[in-house]
């Protein structure tokens, strides 16, 4: 092989450079795995198992949205004897009372920016302008 002295170190540098994100993450503490806050009220039950919610809560929310808004079907869902309204503000945020500590913790980590909160009121936002009835 010609130019062994330059090619091999060059290759090594290249491999290190390309895999940089992997081993940087392994040693760094800059972006730890997110730990979303569990419901402060101590609820253990959700509308679906945690693993399913983690993977597909967005599909569920879209389904609810279409059923409630477009089909006008606003029936409550009953899971294990507990009733839930179908909606972000009506169901999710009743137990997960902090958007910042729950939703944002993963969304920021995964760098997704759902537009839910452009319209829907997070508990934090609600508190800013409380109804004075």
């Amino acid at each position, binding site marked *: 092989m010609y130019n062994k002295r330059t090619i091999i170190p060059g290759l090594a540098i290249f491999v290190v450079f390309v895999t940089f994100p992997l081993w940087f993450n392994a040693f760094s503490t800059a972006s730890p795995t997110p730990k979303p806050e569990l419901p402060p009220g101590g609820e253990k039950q959700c509308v679906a198992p945690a693993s399913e919610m983690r993977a597909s809560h967005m599909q569920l929310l879209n389904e609810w949205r*279409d059923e409630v808004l477009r089909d006008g079907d606003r029936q409550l869902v009953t899971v294990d004897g507990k009733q839930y309204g179908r909606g972000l503000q009506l169901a999710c945020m009743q137990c997960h009372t902090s958007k910042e500590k729950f939703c944002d913790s993963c969304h920021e980590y995964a760098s997704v920016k759902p537009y839910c909160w452009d319209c829907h009121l997070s508990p934090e936002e609600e508190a800013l*302008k409380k*109804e004075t009835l």
Partner: protein
Amino acid sequence: MDKQRRKFLKIAGATALAGISAPAVVKLTSSSAMASSGHGAAVTEDAHKAVSHGAEEVPTTVRFGMVVDMRKFYGKPELLDKAIDACRKVHNIPQIDNKKSEIKWIWKAPFENVFPEHSGYHSSNIKEDNDFLVLCNHCDEPPCVRVCPTKATFRLPNGIVAMDFHRCIGCRFCMMGCPYGARSFNWENPRPYIKEYNPDFPTRMRGVVEKCNFCGERIALGKEPACLEAVKGSGAIFFGDLNDPESEIRKVLEQENTIQRKPSLGTKPSVFYIV
């Protein structure tokens, strides 16, 4: 080489085109595509035709409607404001004091503006001196639904013309189609203009169209529309199923002389006025 590249480009282009158009074709050909907007309307439409041909067929669907008894409002502008404010609170409607950008679901306006087709020539003092209540008519043949390019506004099976703010692209074609000026566009972020939040209802974002929803979210919970509830004692607003001959609203319509806004346009408004 050149020929192969060309062949590749041809195939790639054709595939891309097919890929882009596939969802549209699938949606258009599947029967459920129209379910959200057209189905409910189609049923009542048939019912209407049957009625006009003299057949004794009674519509089986619900069609919500409203009667505004303006006589109860005459000389009481504060009663109008009560209804308007209740709606504002319940639906997180921003208060933008600027005619260009304001958002209105239910508001008040002079007779000549609300009923431009009715003569205002030497009209009675009562009509001159009082404002009239204006809101979405929840038409049986809504032009806004007809023109919307994304089905973001649609007619629910219960007759309510609803909005899906998630889907609205803000083209404002519905505002062109509506002959009643019932629709408002969010020209900027509405949140700074909302005084207090109702936590049970979302706000809107900038760039979407909004309008009265006949309190669909309250009706589902067995409540009455917020404007009606606010003026409950006065008996000025009636709400109910126009297709149910036993409903209170039908009794009112049978007994009183009511008018609709611009009935000649064929939109079949579901809001009636006693003036």
